[in-house]
């Protein structure tokens, strides 16, 4: 009996062993090997983007705007947008890896098909790919904090919590992004993702408080994941923890679970039915 058989047999009686072989790690390992020889351009642009926004809006337009009222505090406009931009870059990073990259592996290189011909299950693939996508969110968050701290844009120590917060929302976006991508078949459908994303981020309160909107629009924006993500990072950035913070966390928990569920189901239906 080969090693491979012994390894698979050891899990034969576990619940869900058809879906999960406990080796999402192997998928991460694959991404790490691929990263060594991949191009760094998209990674770099994702990181530079929020910094450019910070310069243009914060230090450019911020001069005209001055201060913003947030709750009972009045803060400098540049300080106001910094956490919003951090959240946006984490989400963008997660989405890039979980949509276009996943689409390629699903439809062009048939990579998942190859993975699922081994004892791996669809949940291994989904988890591995999604966790990889949130690593990008993590690295953007750390880099952004490292740049904004010396500029005096970080109000307090609690802002360090923006890093786990960014990872958390990246997790939500990555699992949701992969789930949606797994249902898409054509490049036209994929193009839709970009069309939806840009306004979602521009109008979800990263650059100004959404209280400027009429009530119905404000309500609509409050349903969007981008708003919850931006607000969550802003809460921890300024140390404003309240029931709203819990609601944002809950929102992303649901998003993560739904994303994982539908991705796993779809991979199983595509390659194992």
């Amino acid at each position, binding site marked *: 009996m080969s090693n491979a058989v012994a390894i698979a047999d050891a899990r034969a009686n576990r619940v869900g062993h058809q879906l999960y072989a406990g080796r999402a790690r192997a998928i991460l390992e694959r991404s790490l090997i691929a990263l060594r020889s991949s191009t760094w351009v998209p990674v770099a642009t994702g990181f530079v983007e929020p910094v450019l926004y910070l310069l243009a809006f914060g230090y450019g337009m911020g001069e005209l705007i001055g201060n913003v009222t947030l709750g009972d505090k009045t803060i400098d406009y540049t300080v106001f947008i910094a956490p919003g931009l951090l959240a946006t870059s984490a989400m963008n990073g997660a989405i890039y890896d979980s949509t276009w990259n996943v689409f390629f592996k699903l439809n062009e*290189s048939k990579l998942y098909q*190859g993975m699922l011909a081994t004892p791996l299950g669809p949940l291994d693939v989904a988890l591995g790919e999604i966790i990889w996508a949130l690593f990008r969110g993590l690295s953007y968050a750390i880099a952004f904090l490292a740049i904004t701290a010396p500029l005096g844009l970080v109000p307090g120590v609690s802002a360090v919590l923006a890093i786990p917060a960014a990872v958390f929302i990246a997790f939500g976006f990555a699992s949701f992004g992969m789930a949606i991508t797994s249902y898409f078949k054509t490049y036209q459908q994929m193009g839709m993702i970009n069309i939806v994303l840009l306004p979602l981020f521009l109008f979800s309160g990263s650059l100004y408080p959404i209280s400027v909107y009429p009530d119905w629009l404000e309500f609509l924006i409050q349903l969007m994941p981008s708003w919850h993500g931006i607000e969550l990072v802003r809460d921890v950035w300024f140390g404003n923890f309240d029931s709203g913070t819990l609601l944002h966390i809950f929102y992303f928990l649901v998003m993560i679970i739904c994303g994982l569920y539908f991705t796993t189901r779809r991979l199983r239906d595509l390659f194992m039915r």
Partner: protein
Amino acid sequence: MSEALISARGLTKRYGDFTAVDAIDFDVAKGESFGLLGPNGAGKSTTMRIIAATSQRTSGTITILGRDPEEHGPQIRAHLGVVPQQDNLDTELTVTENLFIYGRYFGLGKRFIRTKIEELLEFAQLEEKRDVKVDALSGGMKRRLTIARALVSEPDILMLDEPTTGLDPQARHILWDRLFRLKELGVTLVITTHFMDEAEQLCDRLVVMDKGKIMAEGSPLELIKTYSTKEVLEVRFGSDRNKEIAPTLRAMCSRMEELPDRILMYVEDGEALLEEILNKKLHPTTSLVRRSSLEDVFLRLTGRTLIE
């Protein structure tokens, strides 16, 4: 027959109204090289996917090493090496990285895989390409790498779906040689093909499939013996005269097939028949006497040629 590794009874797969695999029975013994022969769309690949525990049957039973793939998918996949019809190598990785990570998917240890890689590179004759990205390999090399990759987990059964489709003759022969070597080492092979020569070269036993059903089963030699004559005389008179002469010819042999471009006459002694035809002053533009092949078996069973 010794212990059956794979055993299917009434195996059926439907997609909506379409029946891809229609109540087939077969057994594959340990160490055997078993072939599924048939044209595109005969249900071969679907059968392969059911064996590989990556597709679920609609009805019937199947066991692989005594287990049901519906309950023990991951455990069965651990026993198998799969070579799909279309290469799905990891194009972002090099040759060795492909082998390495595939071993990791099975949960194998890094040290074990590294030793194994050297062995596999030699087997696949890819030592000089070890650090090359997959995209830079030729079609034959990619196929050999896909086979090497399937062997990294030391499988009991190697599943090959159309292993040489799309390869040039030289690359095919190299690949056949490699597969023959595996056969000698006692690896059980399950092969689908629509090439007769491939089936004759590689398979100890095969089933002929058409439209989801098994039409016949046996060794290549048995099938030829049962369903064809020893020799075949192929004659051409030009497309106009073929029709005119056909009735005369039909009376001269036990069985005849009229193809669009030529007439096949099934006899024990082809040369003697050709002489008879020439004596009757029917001058074919070309003539060829050959031994019967699986192509003739397929034609007999289905009334169609394999590659249309």
